[in-house]
């Protein structure tokens, strides 16, 4: 009998297909587990009723049919509260399904509930949620990362084998690394954004949390592919990503390692060592490791701050108390707007909107927004040039392991710089997958990322799968309950 708590999609699929496990048993087990233990972890905004989970499951047979998962609460699930972790949307019930949710329902996947997140996906710790602070299942005094911290913690705690998150600057990969699981940020446009509540539209992407590369590929197979409802989606057909994973020789492949990243200021030596060990592991598998430089790395976070806040200022202008969401009653229309947004948004969101309007305002746009866009073009160009000489890159996902609650409450810039290693990938629009590659002496997970050119998910997952075959890090689970 498999250990259901930390079972993979592959294991559950086999047990469901050979009849040793029924869908009802799956629903009951994970529902009970989440209901009992999420009081402590607080990874969920809502755990759906058992009857609703079963009712919405299609009878279609697919790789995900009968497999439970959670949806970050900025992705619309019809008829469900879609709060974005904000008081602003406390009573907002999505009137339609996001394309990814529609595809998951059609596949027969079991949607168990919605996951906590930093308010409007703005944060790296899930501390800015209006619905409680999600705890890291490895150490309850520490954050799970963010902004998709609820999704990551739910998978790490064994409430389900997969969850959807979203990335703007690293919000899937960083919490995946903090929680010791796999996190995929796909190529911009590979997964539809229709129904994902916008933060920074030029970089936003739905991402996937799972325990293994195979499981990540399974979810990707269901949700990826062109969508006419998202004008920025790529003309890429849906396909099965799991059948590309099996052992092919890695001989002849070259992976670039961003040397300066391992010696970057503030880099935890245990993480640097674990990432160097991961590179050495690939070398043993026949891959050539080549040192490369990424000069724009040091400008990426600044360019990301500017463009993401500028886009947020525009995207979040829609929350005005008129058509949906929170409204503060006031005598005049302008006062109603001002009070609605003052009371409806938390301080981090308000701050980012204000930075966005500052960098877009007359007199500042040239210095900030225009320069940021030049940097972004240069970053993409730099990556594409590098990929002419290497198949993909290795970089740390994070500079420090999961930190304690409130660690950056004074030095907020250091919190924002959690995106340092992840956001260049978002700006360039290319894919990356974060994988567990070690544990610190305090038993906290360490992650590294494989970064590839446009639409290289097959290659990244194949390399990730090969890495998992020779290492044990993805099999480690928190021992809390």
């Amino acid at each position: 009998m498999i250990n259901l708590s930390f079972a993979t999609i592959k294991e559950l699929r086999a047990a469901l297909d050979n009849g040793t496990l029924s869908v009802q048993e799956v629903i009951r087990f994970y529902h009970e587990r989440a209901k009992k233990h999420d009081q402590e972890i607080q990874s969920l905004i809502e755990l759906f009723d058992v009857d609703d989970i079963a009712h919405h499951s299609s009878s279609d047979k697919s790789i995900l049919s009968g497999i439970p998962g959670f949806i970050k609460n900025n992705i619309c699930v019809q008829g469900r509260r879609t709060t974005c972790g904000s008081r602003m949307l406390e009573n907002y019930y999505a009137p339609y399904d996001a394309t990814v949710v529609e595809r998951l329902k059609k596949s027969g996947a079991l949607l168990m509930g919605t996951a906590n997140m930093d308010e409007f996906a703005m944060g790296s710790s899930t501390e800015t949620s209006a619905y409680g602070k999600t705890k890291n299942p490895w150490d309850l005094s520490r954050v799970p990362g963010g902004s998709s911290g609820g999704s990551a913690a739910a998978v790490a705690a064994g409430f389900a084998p997969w969850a959807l998150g979203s990335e703007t600057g690293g919000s899937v990969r960083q919490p995946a690394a903090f929680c010791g699981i796999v996190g995929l940020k796909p190529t911009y446009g590979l997964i539809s954004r229709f129904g994902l509540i916008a933060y920074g539209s030029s970089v936003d992407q739905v991402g996937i949390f799972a325990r293994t590369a195979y499981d990540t590929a399974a979810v990707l197979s269901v949700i990826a592919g062109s969508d006419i409802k998202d004008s920025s989606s790529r003309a890429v057909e849906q396909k099965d990503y799991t059948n590309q994973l099996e052992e092919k020789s890695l001989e002849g492949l070259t992976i670039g390692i961003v040397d300066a990243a391992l010696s970057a200021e503030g880099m935890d030596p245990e993480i640097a060592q674990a990432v160097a060990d991961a590179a050495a592991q690939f070398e043993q598998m026949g891959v050539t490791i080549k040192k490369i430089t990424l000069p724009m790395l040091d400008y990426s976070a600044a360019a990301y701050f500017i463009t993401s806040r500028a886009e947020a200022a525009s995207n979040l202008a829609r929350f005005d108390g008129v058509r949906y969401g929170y409204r503060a009653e006031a005598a005049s229309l302008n006062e109603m707007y001002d009070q609605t947004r003052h009371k409806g948004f938390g301080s981090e969101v308000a701050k980012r909107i204000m930075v966005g309007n500052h960098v877009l305002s007359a007199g500042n746009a040239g210095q900030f927004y225009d320069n940021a866009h030049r940097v972004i073009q240069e970053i993409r160009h730099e990556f594409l040039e590098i990929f002419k000489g290497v198949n993909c890159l290795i970089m740390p996902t994070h500079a420090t392991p999961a930190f304690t609650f409130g660690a950056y409450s004074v030095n907020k810039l250091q919190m924002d710089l959690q995106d340092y290693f992840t956001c260049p990938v978002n700006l360039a629009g290319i894919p990356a997958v974060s994988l567990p590659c070690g544990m610190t002496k305090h038993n906290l997970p360490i992650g590294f990322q494989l970064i590839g050119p446009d639409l290289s998910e097959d290659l990244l997952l194949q390399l990730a799968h090969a890495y998992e075959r020779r290492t044990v890090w993805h099999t480690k689970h928190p021992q809390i309950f």
Partner: protein
Amino acid sequence: MSKISQAEVKKIAAISHIALESSDVEMLTAELATIIDYAERVADAPVDLKYEHSAKNINLFREDVASNKPTDAIMQQAPHAEGNYFVVPIILENS
């Protein structure tokens, strides 16, 4: 020197339609200054845009066809509605 003044912060808050507590202005100014100071480094980046730019995505177009859908689910979300209208505080004074 701070890159943003308290007066500018108040102006941006007004543009952003976010009311400020006067007790928050000083701390907010300091926080915004920190991030704006950091963001300024984009001006120093050695950017050479002489190469051909490779767009990260291409627009996907669909037919521009109007459709009528039931509005109930939308109108039910409104903080204040009458029929198919959203009700807001009075904009023009009665003369």
